[in-house]
């Protein structure tokens, strides 16, 4: 296994910032030929950032990367490919209009001696690749309409066809069936035998034990430990993963939890989540924990009327309701602070006032005409209430810091005077100070009687803020904990689908 002492990829002192957030902090990492190296960590631990640096998508702000002992500076994904680094992304980047074979070989089609694309050879090779994966997928199938699992298989086939020296698998098994996982592992082992270095990013610890030789744990963008898998236990790994600091958090003040406001029964959206049931009470913060893709945001989208559930019931204050559109959700008093501030939360080109009042335009207009004074008054109120730091409510939100932008989104939804507030990753990408402020605000809101669903990938945040924690794993509820029951280890066990 460790025939070669020289690492094929070596990262020294890598750091990466996104605005005020440091995603990677002085990370060292070495990958050897012929090993399967698992990279684990919580959401936001920096795994994906590392993968993207290896893929040539991100450029590190500091540090050195060596491939095959030589210092390289990756400027593009193509360059990474040329160096023999193949990455199977979490979200496959494919051409939906083209068939499987072309997706594997795009940009480097096999060609005959006249320079023509050799379709036969291409399909044969891809069919062989797929067959070696023991997949029944035909190379002629258009990618449009393939499931994510199948798309990932295409990506894996692409990596295989590149004869990569380094294969990075970013949570490849998340969408595969157990049979497919077995087959994939067979391939991975085969590749390892050929001397390929495999970096395996996964949440599934049992898979890590099944396939990996060594393991590295990241936490909060820092390297925690690297050790042979055989020397680790599940408990130890989880302890390393969750050892995050809670210092900058503002814990929820205790409040008397009131009557049930929202009840969800057996909510199911096929292929996304199934049989989700819970109750939410006044003054309560219900945390949604789980790993990326567990179905938390998807549940929220259904509650807010953006997507539809196929079956299940939603009860609001004792009455069953159907939420068909965000407008309707708002009428029912549901507000949703979406996960992507820039894409879904804000109109960046608008002023603070215009953003704050965007969801309550009827309230700030008379006979269809906007009343700028009312608008500014409302915006001003929230601006001071949430202490948004700006030069005034007419300032464009694009000029604000992430934390203040988030407060603008919060203001927007508070302005609708909701009874149920869904917060999806409310503190993602904002600095420590602003985070604490947002926590204080959330806590105050709950104290004032709001029923809050808090979706967060930061476990400590959920644990500190939530009265109860609902854990989702692959679209199903795998655990519900009260505040006192919930520990990082227990939640993480449930979130990774471990049977204790």
């Amino acid at each position, binding site marked *: 296994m460790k025939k070669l002492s020289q690492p094929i990829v070596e990262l020294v002192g890598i750091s990466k910032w996104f605005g005020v957030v440091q995603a990677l902090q002085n990370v060292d990492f070495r990958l050897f030929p012929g090993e399967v190296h698992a990279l684990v960590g919580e959401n936001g631990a920096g795994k994906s950032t590392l993968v993207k640096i290896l893929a040539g998508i991100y450029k590190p702000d500091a540090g050195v990367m060596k491939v095959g002992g030589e210092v390289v500076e990756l400027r593009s994904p193509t360059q990474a490919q040329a160096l023999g680094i193949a990455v199977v992304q979490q979200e496959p980047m494919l051409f939906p209009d*083209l068939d499987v074979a072309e997706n594997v070989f795009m*940009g480097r*089609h096999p060609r005959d001696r006249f*320079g023509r694309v050799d379709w036969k050879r291409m399909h044969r090779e891809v069919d062989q690749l797929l067959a070696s994966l023991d997949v029944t997928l035909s190379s002629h*199938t258009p990618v449009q309409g393939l499931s994510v699992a199948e798309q990932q298989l295409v990506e894996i086939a692409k990596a295989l066809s590149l004869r990569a020296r380094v294969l990075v698998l970013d949570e490849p098994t998340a969408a595969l*069936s157990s049979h497919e996982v077995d087959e994939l592992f067979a391939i991975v082992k085969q590749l390892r035998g050929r001397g390929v270095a495999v970096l395996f990013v996964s949440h599934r610890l049992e898979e890590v034990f099944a396939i990996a030789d060594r393991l590295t744990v990241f936490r909060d963008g820092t390297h925690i430990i690297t050790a042979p898998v055989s020397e680790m236990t599940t408990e130890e790994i989880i302890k390393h993963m969750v050892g995050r600091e809670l210092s900058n958090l503002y814990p929820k003040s205790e409040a008397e939890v009131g009557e049930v406001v929202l009840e969800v029964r057996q909510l199911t959206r096929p292929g996304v989540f199934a049989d989700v049931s819970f109750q939410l009470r006044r003054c309560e913060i219900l945390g949604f924990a789980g790993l990326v893709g567990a179905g938390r945001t998807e549940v929220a989208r259904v509650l807010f009327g953006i997507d539809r559930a196929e079956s299940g019931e939603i009860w609001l204050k004792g009455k069953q309701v159907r939420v068909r559109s965000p407008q309707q959700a708002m009428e029912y008093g549901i507000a949703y602070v979406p996960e992507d501030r820039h894409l879904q939360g804000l109109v960046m080109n608008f002023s603070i006032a215009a953003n704050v009042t965007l969801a309550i335009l009827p309230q700030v207009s008379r006979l269809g005409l906007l009343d700028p004074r009312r608008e500014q008054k409302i915006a001003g109120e929230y601006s001071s209430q949430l202490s948004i730091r700006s030069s005034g409510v007419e300032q464009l939100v694009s000029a604000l810091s992430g934390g203040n932008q988030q407060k603008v989104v919060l203001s927007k939804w508070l302005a609708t005077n909701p009874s149920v507030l869904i917060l999806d990753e409310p503190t993602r990408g904002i600095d420590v100070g602003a985070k604490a402020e947002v926590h204080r605000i959330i806590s105050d809101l709950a104290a004032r009687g709001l029923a809050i669903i808090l979706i967060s990938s930061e476990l400590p945040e959920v644990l500190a803020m939530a009265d109860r924690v609902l854990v989702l794993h692959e*679209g199903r509820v795998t655990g519900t904990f009260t505040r006192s029951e919930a520990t990082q280890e227990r939640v993480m066990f449930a979130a990774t689908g471990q049977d204790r």
Partner: protein
Amino acid sequence: MTTTSSEVEPAKQRGQPGQARLLGLVSRVRELGLLAVLLFIVLIVGIQAPRFLSINNFVQILLSVAILAIVAVGETLVVLTRNVDLSVGSMVGFTAFVTAYFFKELPHSNLLLGILLGCALGLGLGMINGLIVSFGRVPAIVATLGTLYAYRGLVFIFASNTTSQVNASDVPGGYLALATTQILGIPALILIAAVVAVIVGYFLHASQSGRQLYAVGSNPEAANMIGIRAHRLVFAAFAASGLLCGLAGVLWGARFGTVDATNATGLELQVIAAVVVGGVNIFGGSGTVQGAVLGAVVLGTLENALNILNVSQFWLQAIYGAAIIGAVVLDAFITRWLQRAILSRRKKA
């Protein structure tokens, strides 16, 4: 809306061989459907008016769409990259006029020279479009709307400084013969269009760059990830569209003999109709040259059939419009049906 973001899909679905075949089939529905429509028209009109079915009539139909088809082939290249070229009518008009004028002034010059001149002019115009779009980053619709005006203005200026009209009697017979010659009993015009369609179709099918054109239109981000230079390809697509417009212009002059500064005005509408009806996705990434040509033939056949059935020609334009809208509506429904079919299969699996 099915905005199922590419999150985890817990269900244990697997691609079955049947599903693969279904998908492959559906993607071809458009072209097959078009063929069916064509056959349907032929059948219905043939019963009503048997002379519609004469070989001569079919030759006439093909002749009437040959030039349109050449331009539609070029347009297909552009549309595949998620762009659109609205200036084709002006480019055809420009090259037709200049080529005809060239032959009028120099009737004894080499035929090939004139053809090359027209093609080169078209190429030049197309390259200007390409530069503005891919390097000036002006949206294609704006850029080519502008050049639609500008190129037409240039034709007028050229015409007012030379001659207002070139008549069939002014140009050498050799040039006009380009459109009337028959090779093995088939009119040269049809052959040229067929050759162009086959070459470009083959290029799209069998060349690396051709396939990358699809990639750029299908997912620009993914194309960028694997190092495809989208700018260059878009530029090349516009240049090729210009080149084919140049060729079409040369043939236009030969076919109609009499050309003035307004010729080929409004051609872009017919071209886009042919391309859209032919199943080329206006948002790029999918569609074929044979589809676009088939679209042109269907529209030409429809026009011919209406004439034969004595339907007032006032209906023609309305039918073109309805065909464009009908085609995109149909596309929307096919896509929905496809999605639903996949979903229900998944559920069963």
